[in-house]
């Protein structure tokens, strides 16, 4: 009976979702969006007015610092803070005990981490105590005075040690050090492999990576009174600390105020989840009665903050003689680090999108994530998908080579066609696409880089070899997760015609504030300059899940449109009265409300607003908007079976990249022959999409391909500074071209889908494929550092001699 209800419910939701796509006007009909829109925050940022967390000071502020464990795995026997407390200038000292056993985690089942460790440390430099003092140096000195007695324990430092029989346990209650595992099976891979013309299996490895943002974590916390907490953190998802701190300090959500400063990039993980400073500052403030600020150093960031999972992806692929995919089977082993954090999601994502961007009839995956005594792993741009897409798109070139098929041709043969309007493409695990521009992306990218000519061109010039590589990517937008994924917006019309846009969504640099304002302006028929956006303040803004899973533009954007429509409705009702017509017979454009049938009958925006607000019955105009797609149960992904939609819609990318390989040294450089064709549905602000694709995605992707990797030695990070940990700089930046492929997705605001996160996933395979094209060697483990490439070339030369 209950099941039946369920079914009925699903049915209804499905109808609603499919039936009511966002209305899309013709592009030329738009007056604000779809054109270059200057960022609403650009002036503040370029004049230094923009305040980031570390820039903010309040009266009587103390500085905090954290005492960290010198052991990657040890029992805490005793902590003596007396020496620190008696140091002049020290105002408060806390240990994990002050949090009364509070633990938090990604979901109720995974609350395995403490703000500061009380009984056991599980990774090197884990926080065990914190100090607040009148200045930073005193706080640091006091930290050194805290005496902690440890009983060191043997540790495990990679998943292969962790999985061994009798390996030390990172969490006593987690047998076998298993953090999370998934086993999904769609279709019949065994049968498909048996029928395949060619079956190939390879193991690929992706490294432990830093997020790469330049702004280290920072937080300022104070208690206006004993029952209200205010926190100004460098967090891209302020409603994470909002909820977590309310639990931690046992306060109603109404009393937790998170004020959003400008954010120096996010990229997932640390900046939407918590780190010890985010708990310690409020606790130190509570204890000292003064505001407390903690700013991490780059060393803290690079040694203790969340990283990209290192993963070992074994991929078995079967194809027909003409190169069409018949089946893929993956085994993924990943290093989750010391705590669960977002590992359940990261590892889930390695499989959920395997049915994209290529048609895949059979798919089986087994994913194992292990706890180790390394710093925790978590979300990072291209979250999860990046690892398996790298494996998939490199292996596709390997197969193409074996079959003698051109890599671009091979991709075209497998690419999912763009569904006809109104039609939906369903992957084997029931992801639903209304649009898919991957074919067009492939064609445009290949054409722009002159694929045919380039691939025939002479490769070796002196000691240098040149090659081009191709890869495709995909990413979900508007993450669908159960629970807290609804969001809302308010459009407040001021009596003088100016407008406040109020959202809970955060712009961490991707430009969402600007496109939100643009969409509101578009709907209201006014200019961008008429709209002021408020930065998030949980005391005033509607709750929003946060900036992750490429959800802001698509979901918060839908809320923005709905809020603007709501306000517009109220205004038109007033206008309609004036002209004695029905509201639906009127519209607003270029700051004028007019009767559609007779545009002469019109009233300017300012007067319209005043009239609506003042004349009886005057009204206070606040438009409200919702987006419920994020929690729509239609196809909501099921973690245990891997079935269902994780995204509201899906973006697609094709990338072509040329590399130059120094055959004597192994140094690889990406040249300016670089093209990214990207289907983000509809580019609401084209230059912003470009910067996102190039900077937020492609360029870090080049870093992942060539430079970025934490070198570890038994839990110790050997390159904990930005000299030894290489982030690509301006000189290494290829002057990439971006091509927009427009598909106008019915489930995105004005046809938009996520911009760029998918492009994070294409750079690495494109570069590796290009290195192969140039030199004939395959680099299966990232990054392709000079030494690695050098030995591979040497081995190949020696094989050649024999």
């Amino acid at each position, binding site marked *: 009976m209950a099941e039946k209800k369920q079914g009925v419910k699903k049915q209804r939701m499905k109808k609603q979702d499919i039936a009511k796509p966002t209305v899309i006007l013709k592009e030329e009909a738009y007056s604000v969006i779809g054109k270059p829109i200057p960022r609403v925050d650009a002036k503040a940022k370029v004049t230094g007015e923009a305040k980031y967390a570390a820039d903010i000071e309040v009266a009587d502020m103390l500085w905090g610092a954290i005492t960290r464990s010198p052991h990657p795995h040890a029992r805490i026997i005793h902590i003596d803070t007396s020496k620190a407390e008696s140091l002049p200038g020290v105002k408060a000292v806390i240990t994990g005990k002050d949090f009364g056993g509070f633990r938090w985690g990604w979901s109720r089942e995974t609350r395995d981490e403490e703000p500061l460790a009380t009984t056991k440390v599980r990774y090197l430099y884990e926080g065990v105590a914190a100090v607040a003092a009148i200045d930073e140096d005193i706080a640091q000195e006091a930290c050194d005075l805290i005496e902690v007695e440890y009983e*060191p324990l043997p540790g495990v430092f990679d998943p292969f040690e962790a999985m061994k029989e009798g390996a030390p346990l990172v969490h006593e209650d987690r047998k076998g050090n298993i953090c999370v595992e998934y086993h999904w099976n769609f279709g019949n891979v065994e049968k498909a492999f048996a029928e395949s013309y060619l079956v190939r299996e390879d193991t690929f490895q992706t490294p432990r990576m830093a997020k790469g943002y330049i702004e280290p974590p920072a937080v300022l916390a104070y208690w206006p009174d004993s029952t209200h907490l205010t926190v100004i953190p460098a967090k891209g998802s302020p409603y994470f600390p909002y909820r977590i701190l309310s639990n931690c300090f046992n306060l109603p959500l109404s009393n937790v105020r998170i004020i959003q400063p400008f954010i120096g990039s996010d990229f997932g993980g640390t900046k939407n989840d918590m780190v010890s400073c985010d708990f310690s500052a409020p606790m130190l403030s509570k204890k000292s009665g003064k505001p407390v600020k903690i700013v991490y150093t780059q060393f803290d960031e690079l040694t203790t903050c969340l990283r990209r999972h290192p993963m070992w992806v074994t991929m078995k692929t079967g194809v027909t003689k003409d190169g069409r995919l018949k089946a893929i089977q993956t085994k993924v082993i990943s290093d989750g680090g010391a705590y669960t954090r977002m590992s359940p999601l990261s590892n889930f994502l390695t499989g959920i999108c395997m049915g994209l961007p290529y048609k895949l009839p059979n798919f089986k995956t087994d994913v194992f994530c292990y706890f180790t005594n390394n710093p925790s792993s978590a979300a990072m741009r291209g979250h999860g998908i990046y690892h398996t897409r790298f494996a998939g798109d490199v292996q596709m070139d390997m197969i193409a080579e074996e079959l003698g098929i051109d890599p671009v041709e091979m991709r075209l043969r497998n690419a999912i066609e763009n569904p006809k309007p109104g039609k939906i493409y369903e992957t084997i695990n029931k992801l639903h696409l209304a649009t898919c521009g991957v074919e067009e992306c492939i064609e445009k990218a290949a054409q722009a880089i002159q694929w045919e000519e380039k691939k025939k061109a002479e490769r070796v010039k002196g000691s240098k070899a040149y090659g081009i590589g191709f890869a495709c990517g995909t990413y979900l937008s508007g993450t669908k997760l159960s629970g807290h994924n609804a969001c809302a917006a308010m459009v407040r019309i001021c009596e003088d015609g100016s407008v406040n846009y109020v959202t809970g969504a955060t712009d961490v640099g991707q430009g969402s504030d600007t496109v939100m304002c643009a969409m509101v302006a578009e709907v209201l028929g006014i200019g961008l300059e008429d709209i002021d956006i408020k930065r998030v303040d949980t005391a005033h803004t509607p709750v929003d899940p946060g900036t992750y899973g490429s959800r802001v533009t698509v979901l918060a954007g839908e809320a923005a449109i709905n809020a603007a429509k709501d306000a517009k409705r109220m205004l038109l009702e007033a206008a309609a009265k004036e002209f004695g017509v029905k509201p639906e017979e009127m519209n607003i454009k270029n700051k004028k409300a007019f009767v559609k049938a007779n545009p002469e009958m019109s009233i300017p925006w300012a007067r319209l607003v005043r009239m609506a607000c003042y004349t009886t019955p005057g009204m206070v105009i606040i438009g409200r908007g919702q987006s419920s797609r994020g929690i729509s149960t239609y196809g909501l992904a099921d973690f245990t079976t891997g079935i269902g939609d994780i995204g509201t819609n899906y973006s697609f990318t094709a990338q072509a990249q040329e590399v130059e390989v120094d055959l004597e040294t192994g140094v690889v450089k990406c040249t300016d022959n670089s093209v990214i064709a990207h289907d983000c549905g509809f580019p609401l602000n084209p230059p912003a999409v470009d910067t996102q694709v190039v900077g937020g995605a492609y360029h870090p992707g080049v870093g992942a391909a060539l430079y970025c990797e934490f070198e570890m030695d038994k839990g110790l990070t050997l390159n904990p500074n930005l000299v030894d940990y290489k982030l690509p700089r301006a000189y290494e930046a290829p002057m990439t071209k971006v091509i927009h492929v427009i598909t106008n997705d019915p489930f995105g605001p004005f046809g938009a889908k996520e911009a760029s996160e998918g492009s994070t996933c294409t750079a690495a395979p494109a570069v590796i494929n290009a290195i192969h094209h140039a030199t004939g060697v395959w680099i299966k483990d990232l990054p392709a550092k000079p030494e690695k490439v050098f030995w591979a070339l040497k081995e190949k030369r020696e094989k050649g001699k024999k």
Partner: protein
Amino acid sequence: MQMEGKFTLKAPIQKLWDTLLDPETLLSCIPGAEKIERIDEKTFDCVVKQKVGPISVKFKFKSILSKVEPPTHIEVDGEGEDIGKAGHFVQKSVVDLRQIPGGEVEVSYRTDATIVGKLAMFGDRIMRAKAKKVEEEFTKALQERLKNVV
């Protein structure tokens, strides 16, 4: 940070063994060693000073003979920290003595050391270079010392 190596000496293995375990020997051979005291059967109390250019550290640490199989095999675990809090240091060494033809003994060692804290901010470039030097000096001094065992 792993280091290993071996050298051979012409001396009776038992004598080598005894000298090797004599704090006096270690004190004179470990570069920068200021104090090496045997406080019980298994435990040594040590203070070792090290200098890299302008950076000086003084490690106070305990070395415990975790495994002793006279006269061929020793395992030593050391842990301690710099008195100036510049770093925390953990080390495990395994030394094997093996009789080889011609009355010679082959001494082989394997050390795994980790230094964390401020010193580790450097990254490992300078530290590894320094450790390599210390290792060279130590084994050289030790060979000198053990030569005179005969």
